[in-house]
Structure formats: structure tokens, C-alpha cells
């Protein structure tokens, strides 16, 4: 029974070809590059507004040196939010439910930020491992704890996104299969399940957008510390 429920997360293949490649291309296909003329169409204007306000918001706490990360953070945000929200449509596959993909983004980006921090100002980077005002007997334990929390960041980043989206999709599948099986025999229970499904779907739309934002926000916070 459980294997059946998780089957929706199997990386889909068709005749041996991985279909996740097509799912990953979806964001590229949905965002046409803006044309050079002054007034663009509604979709391009909307994108422009979104990217502009997002970049303004996420770069404001970062110093000027870190602003070169603008393109990477903007691309990551657009990519993740599109993959997450598209996955909520029926019969689509969400690549961000794959731990491999989320770790593939979390680990290299976190590592790049940490290495950059250690290269540019090693003392400052090491200083993050000991909060100010720590009582002396607690210092060794706290350094160990802070180091562990530093090393666990990429894992947390990847698993957070995976778990949130997987759990959401799983719940939707569970509740919808319950509603469907109850439809003819116990219609009242089925209608309750359908209303729950509606609320759940609204929640999942919010979660999809929020989780993408949180991923990029946390990366920007780590960048703030290290740049």
C-alpha cells in the first residue's frame, strides 16, 4: 500500500528516456525573453516586476560585493517557484520532490558561499562559530554545536524543500483517493474530503511558493554572513 502511494515520486522514464529532463525544461519554455522594445506584453511586464521586486528585496541586506550573486539568486527563485507551482497541476511531475535535485542545488551553492567566506576573511568566517558574549566554560561545546549546525545547513536546505513538497503531494493523493472511493457509498464523507482537498490545494500552492522563497532566502542569509 505504501509503495503504491510513493510511486508518484518515481523519476519517470519512457522507453528508457528520463522524462525529468522535460519537466526541468518547463520553466525555460514558460518565460519568453523580453524583447528590446520599451513596452512589453503583460506576461513579460509581470515577470519583470516580479524579478525586480524580488532582487530589490533579497539584495537589500547584502553588501555591494554580494550583489554579483543577483543573477544566480533570481534564476534560482524563478526556477524553483515555477517547478513547484507547475507540479500542482494534475498529472505533472515535480522535479523538486527529488532529493537528488534539491541536494544538487543546496550543496554546491552552500559550499561555494562557505569557501568564499573562508577565503575572503577566514577570521570573520570562523568567528561565526562562537556567538558574542558566550560564557567561557561553554565555549568548546558551543563551537562544536555551531560547527555541526554549519555543516548541516545544506542537508537541511535540500531536505526541507523535498519533504515539504513530497508531504504535500502525498496528502493530496491520499485525500483525493479517499474522496473518490467514498464518492458513491458515503457521499457526505466524500464531500467533506473534497472540501479538505480544496483547502489542502490552496495550502500547497502557498507552500510551493514559500518553500522556493525560503530556499533562496536562506542562501542569501548565508551569503550575507560570508561576503
Amino acid at each position, binding site marked *: 500500500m505504501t509503495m503504491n502511494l510513493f510511486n508518484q*515520486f518515481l523519476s519517470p522514464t519512457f522507453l528508457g528516456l528520463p522524462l*525529468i529532463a522535460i519537466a526541468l525544461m518547463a520553466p*525555460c519554455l514558460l518565460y519568453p*525573453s523580453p524583447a528590446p522594445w520599451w513596452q512589453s506584453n503583460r506576461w513579460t511586464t509581470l515577470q519583470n516586476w516580479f524579478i525586480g521586486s524580488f532582487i530589490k528585496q533579497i539584495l537589500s541586506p547584502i553588501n555591494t560585493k554580494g550583489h554579483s550573486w543577483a*543573477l544566480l539568486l533570481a534564476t534560482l527563485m524563478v526556477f524553483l517557484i515555477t517547478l513547484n507551482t507547475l507540479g500542482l497541476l494534475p498529472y505533472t511531475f515535480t522535479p523538486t520532490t527529488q532529493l*537528488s535535485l534539491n541536494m544538487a542545488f543546496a550543496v554546491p551553492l552552500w559550499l561555494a558561499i562557505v569557501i568564499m567566506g573562508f577565503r575572503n576573511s577566514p577570521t570573520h568566517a570562523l568567528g561565526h562559530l562562537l556567538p558574542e558574549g558566550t560564557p567561557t566554560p561553554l565555549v568548546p561545546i558551543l563551537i562544536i554545536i555551531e560547527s555541526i549546525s554549519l555543516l548541516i545547513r545544506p542537508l537541511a536546505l535540500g531536505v526541507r524543500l523535498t519533504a515539504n513538497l513530497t508531504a504535500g503531494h502525498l496528502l493530496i493523493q491520499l485525500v483525493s483517493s479517499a474522496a473518490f472511493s467514498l464518492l458513491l457509498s458515503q457521499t457526505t464523507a466524500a464531500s467533506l474530503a473534497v472540501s479538505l482537498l480544496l483547502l489542502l490545494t490552496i495550502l500547497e500552492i502557498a507552500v510551493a511558493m514559500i518553500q522556493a522563497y525560503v530556499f533562496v532566502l536562506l542562501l542569501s542569509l548565508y551569503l550575507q554572513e560570508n561576503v
Partner: protein
Amino acid sequence: MPQLNPAPWFLILVFSWLIFLALMPPKILTHQFPHEPSTLTAHKPKANSWTWAWQ
């Protein structure tokens, strides 16, 4: 859990980074953020509008 199957992990990594590095950034880069057009002629030159950092 099928997500823990290591078989497609490397392929997924390669594909996702390929798309993330090669296909998405040109689309984002073409977005520009010029200043709002003003009705009055400004004698003082405005600050340069923000560009993606290295352009």
C-alpha cells in the same frame, strides 16, 4: 522511497545544473530595470539604473 534510489541522481544533477546555468540565466539577464520616465526635464543627471552586476 523512490527518491532515495541512487540510479538517476547523477543524471538529475547534471540536467538540472545544465538548465540552471545555460538556459535560464539568459532569459533573466534580458530583463532590464530602467528608471521611471519623468515628465520634467532633469538638469541633474540621475544615478545609473541598476544592471545585473557585471554588465
